[in-house]
C-alpha cells in the first residue's frame, strides 16, 4: 500500500490567482459559487475528471493555481455548456475552463503528449497560416505530434471517409491571409504582447 500526504500548506497557494481569473470577462460570477455541485452533476465528462468541475471552481477561488492548471479536468471539458446553463449562480463555467486552458498553454504546464492542447495549438496555427481548417491535415498533425502509432488505427476511418467522398487532402485557404495576420498582430499589440 502506498500512502500519500494530501495536506495543503499556505505556501502551495498562489495568492491572487483566483481574483485574477475572476477579473477576466465572463469569469466574474465565480465569486458567487456555493459549491452545490450542479456543474459536476450535469457534466457528461465529470466521471473522467481528476477534480470535478465544482472542485476546480473552489481550487481557483482558493488560489491553488498549480493544481488547477495541471489538472486533467480542464482538458476534458468538451465545451457543451451544460454546466453554464444549469449553474444556479450563473457562473460561466465553460468560459472559466477556456481561461484555465489558455493559462495552462501559456505556462506550458499541460500534460505532455496530451492530444487536446496539441490539437488546440495546431488548430490555432492552421487558422493563422491559412485562415481555414482542413480537418484531415489537422488530425494528421495532431497524431504526428502526440502518438504517431494511433494514426495507423485511424486508417479505417480514412478509408470510409474516402468512400463517402468526405476525405480531402486539399488545404483550403482564404484569399486575404495577410489581413488576418495583421488583425492577429494588432490584437497582440493591444494586449501588450507585440512581437519582440
Amino acid at each position, binding site marked *: 500500500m502506498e500512502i500519500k500526504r494530501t495536506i495543503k500548506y499556505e505556501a502551495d497557494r498562489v495568492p491572487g490567482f483566483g481574483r485574477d481569473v475572476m477579473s*477576466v*470577462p*465572463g469569469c466574474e460570477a465565480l465569486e458567487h459559487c456555493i459549491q452545490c455541485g450542479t456543474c459536476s452533476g450535469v457534466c*457528461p*465528462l465529470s466521471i*473522467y475528471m481528476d477534480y470535478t468541475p465544482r472542485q476546480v471552481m473552489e481550487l481557483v477561488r482558493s488560489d491553488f493555481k498549480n493544481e488547477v492548471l495541471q489538472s486533467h479536468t480542464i482538458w*476534458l471539458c*468538451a*465545451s*457543451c*455548456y*451544460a454546466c*453554464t*446553463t444549469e449553474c444556479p449562480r450563473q457562473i*460561466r463555467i*465553460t468560459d472559466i475552463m*477556456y481561461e484555465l*486552458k*489558455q493559462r495552462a498553454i501559456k505556462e506550458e504546464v499541460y500534460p505532455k503528449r496530451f*492530444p*487536446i492542447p496539441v*490539437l*488546440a*495549438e495546431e*488548430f*490555432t496555427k*492552421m*487558422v493563422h497560416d491559412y*485562415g*481555414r*481548417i*482542413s*480537418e*484531415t491535415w489537422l*488530425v494528421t498533425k*495532431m497524431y504526428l505530434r502526440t502518438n504517431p502509432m494511433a494514426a495507423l488505427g485511424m486508417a*479505417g*476511418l480514412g478509408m*470510409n*471517409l474516402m*468512400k*463517402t*467522398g*468526405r*476525405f*480531402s487532402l486539399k488545404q*483550403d485557404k*482564404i*484569399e*486575404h491571409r495577410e*489581413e*488576418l495576420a*495583421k*488583425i*492577429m*498582430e*494588432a*490584437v497582440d499589440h*493591444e*494586449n501588450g504582447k507585440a512581437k519582440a
Partner: protein
Amino acid sequence: MKYAYFPGCSLKGTGRAYEESLLPVMKHLGVELQELDDWNCCGATAYMAVDEGKACAAAARNLAIAEKSGLQQILAPCSACYLVLNKTQHYLHEYPAMRQTVSRALATVGLRCDGSSAVRHPLDVLINDIGLEAVKQKITRPLKGLKVAPYYGCQIVRPYATFDDQSNPTTMDRLLETLGATVIKWPLKTKCCGGSLTGTLPEAGLRLSYILLKEAIKRGADVIATVCPLCQFNLDAYHPKIAAKWEPVPIPTVYFSQLMGLAFGLPADQVVLNRGMVPMKPLAAAMA
C-alpha cells in the same frame, strides 16, 4: 428572403453533406444565401482555449465582412460556428475592453464591426422566418412511418441562443413532425456527443456517442437527425470502433436538411444520403 451565409470549414470538408443538402432545400423554399466573401475559420472551441482576444478578433472579421455586405442576418449552420459568432457578438456588447481591442485590430485592415448583425441558425430561420406552413407546402413525400430521434447536441441552444428552450428544445421536433415523421421522445437530445474528444480521448468521447446511439435504438428510432457536422461525424464515423469496444449500434445519423430534401422530393444528388457511412436502409424502407 436573403441571408449572408457562413458555411464554416466543416461544411466544406467532412460535413459537406450538410451544405450539399441545406443549400437546395433553402433554394427550394425561396431563400437566397450569399456566401460571405473570403470568410475565415470561426475559431471553434479550440481557439478560445488558446487566446480569447484573437479568437474573438478572428470571428469578428467574419461579422465585419457580413456588415460590409449590407446583409443584416448571418446564417451559420454549423453549431460551433453559430456559437462562436454569437459569443463574439455578446463579448463585443458586454465587454468594452474586448470591443476596443477587436475594433482597433479590425481597423488596421480597414474593417469595422459594430455588432449589428444577427447570427441565425437554419432551424431558427425555418421556424421563425419561413414558417412551418411554407415548409408544409413544399412536401411531396411525407416521411410517414419514419421514426426520427431529434438530436440537437449542445452548442446550438446553449448558452446564447434565444430561439429555443435551453433544456428542452423543440424546434427540430416541430419541423420533423411537419415533414410527417414520428418524433421519438428521448432525454438525450441536448447531451454531448463527445465533441472533439472522440478523436483526442476516445475512451471518454466515444462512450458519449455510444450512449446516444444505443438509447436512440432502444427508444425505437430508425434514424437520428442532427444539426451539427461534428455530431454527425461522431455518430456516423466511429461505428466500427464502438462495436469493437462495446456493441454494434447500427443506426444512421443524417442532417435534418437531408430529411427535408427527402420530404421535398429533391433528387438524390441533393439529398446525398450516399455520404453516410452507416447504411441508410431504414430511410429507404420508410420511403418505399
